[in-house]
């Protein structure tokens, strides 16, 4: 019993010490806490899943640039800071935790009518991914073509009339 108490006490002291030593990162998550690779596949249909190298992207962007106020770092966006300057680490850091997969469904649209809701313009999951990725990729010349991040599936080729479903030349007209 006594040894266990001792261990607990030491652990507590170490933790406290660790927090005191890094005052800039109070309660915040670290890069090492996140997986190195993330497969983004919840909406894969016309395009295949995206193999997202999370570790590599931490070299280009700080946590809060993508995760907003949820990782415990101070937010840079002044619009967010108005409410979230001291929010601390959130319960949820994943994209799906906040961004609606089915952004325009009737029930979700109904919730936007609440007069107390400030986040009436929060993008859905697909929009959040693309706006975040593309916004940065355009600035730092990262890949911006659709198939540079995810390859088109057969369903996608059918939808876009391309690949095996490409229109035969000269048979269809665009009319006027």
């Amino acid at each position: 019993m006594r040894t266990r108490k001792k261990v607990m006490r030491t652990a507590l002291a170490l933790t406290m010490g660790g927090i005191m030593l890094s005052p800039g990162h109070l309660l915040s998550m670290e890069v090492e806490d996140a997986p190195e690779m993330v497969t983004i596949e919840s909406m894969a249909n016309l395009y295949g899943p995206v193999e997202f190298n999370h570790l590599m992207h931490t070299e280009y962007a700080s946590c809060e640039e993508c995760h907003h106020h949820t990782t415990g770092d101070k937010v840079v966006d002044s619009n967010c800071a108005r409410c979230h300057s001291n929010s601390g680490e959130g319960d949820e850091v994943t994209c799906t935790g906040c961004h609606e997969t089915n952004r325009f469904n009737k029930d979700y649209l109904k919730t936007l009518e609440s007069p107390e809701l400030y986040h009436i313009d929060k993008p859905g999951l697909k929009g959040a991914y693309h706006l975040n990725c593309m916004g940065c990729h355009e600035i730092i010349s990262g890949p911006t073509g659709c198939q540079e991040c995810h390859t088109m599936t057969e369903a996608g080729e059918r939808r876009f009339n391309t690949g095996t479903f490409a229109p035969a030349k000269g048979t269809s007209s665009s009319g006027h």
Partner: protein
Amino acid sequence: MKKLLSRRNFLKGGLAATASATVLKNKDCQASGDFDGYPDSMGVLVDLTRCVGCRSCEAACNKEQDLPEPAKPFDDFSVFDEIHHGQKRRTDETRYTVVNRYDVPELDHPLFRKFQCNHCAEPACLTSCFVNAYTKTPEGAVIYNSKVCVGCRTCMIACPFYVPTFKYSSAFDPKIMKCIFCYDTRLKEGKAPACVEACPQEALTFGKRKDVLKMGKQRIRETPGKYVDHIYGEHEVGGTAWMYLSSVPFDKVGFDTHVPKEPILNSVKDFLAIVPMVLTIWPGLFIGFHLLATRKDKIKEMEKEKNKKNDEKEEQV
């Protein structure tokens, strides 16, 4: 004498009818001018700064509306360089929506603009149609019924955005082709149109018109300098269900900024209200005037003839 009185009564009646028609006309005008659109109608906010020109919306529309196979694949971006009769691509019987690229000199990147029916609150196509083939639904869509259409194509001329197009390939079974906001398959059930759902960048935001308008205003307010302080479609032609945000003046990205800020109907309403009155009252009224004006001549002529006869009689005697 009896005849004269009835004429007078007729004229009196005519004048009274004219007066009442004028009063009624004014009343009608006010009623239609006060229409602010259906309160819970849906709308789409198009943010040009978000569009990357991927044409996903065009592809989704093509499949949802069962339109013919395109000439080029939807991932072929050479279509942005196409010029037809001096114009960029436009909607036609094979496509209800198109995306065009605009190279704006002051920007280091092009802007893309999606184009389709804007679903006006008071559509000019609807008011111009004399067989009532068009309907503005409470959900916000302007839909069309080909069963009653006679193919006069007045709507094509009435539309300030040149949206309705004619299916020339079936001229004997006339059909106007235009975006219907996916009314039959989606909007009716409260679902977003196919193009909105397909957009990866959420450049298209679907919701109640008043809510998406609020979002648009919030974007302008919270990101100073990013947008032109104007939402195209908020007031244009009396308000449209589809509205646009842009980072450059709207005339630089293909919008007609000279459209009136009130429904097209307002510019013809006063005239149109007179038409039934002119057609029903004027003929009677002016025949009456004519008879009245020529009455004296007739009496004179009759008297002349009487005198002639009398003279002849006298001569014979």
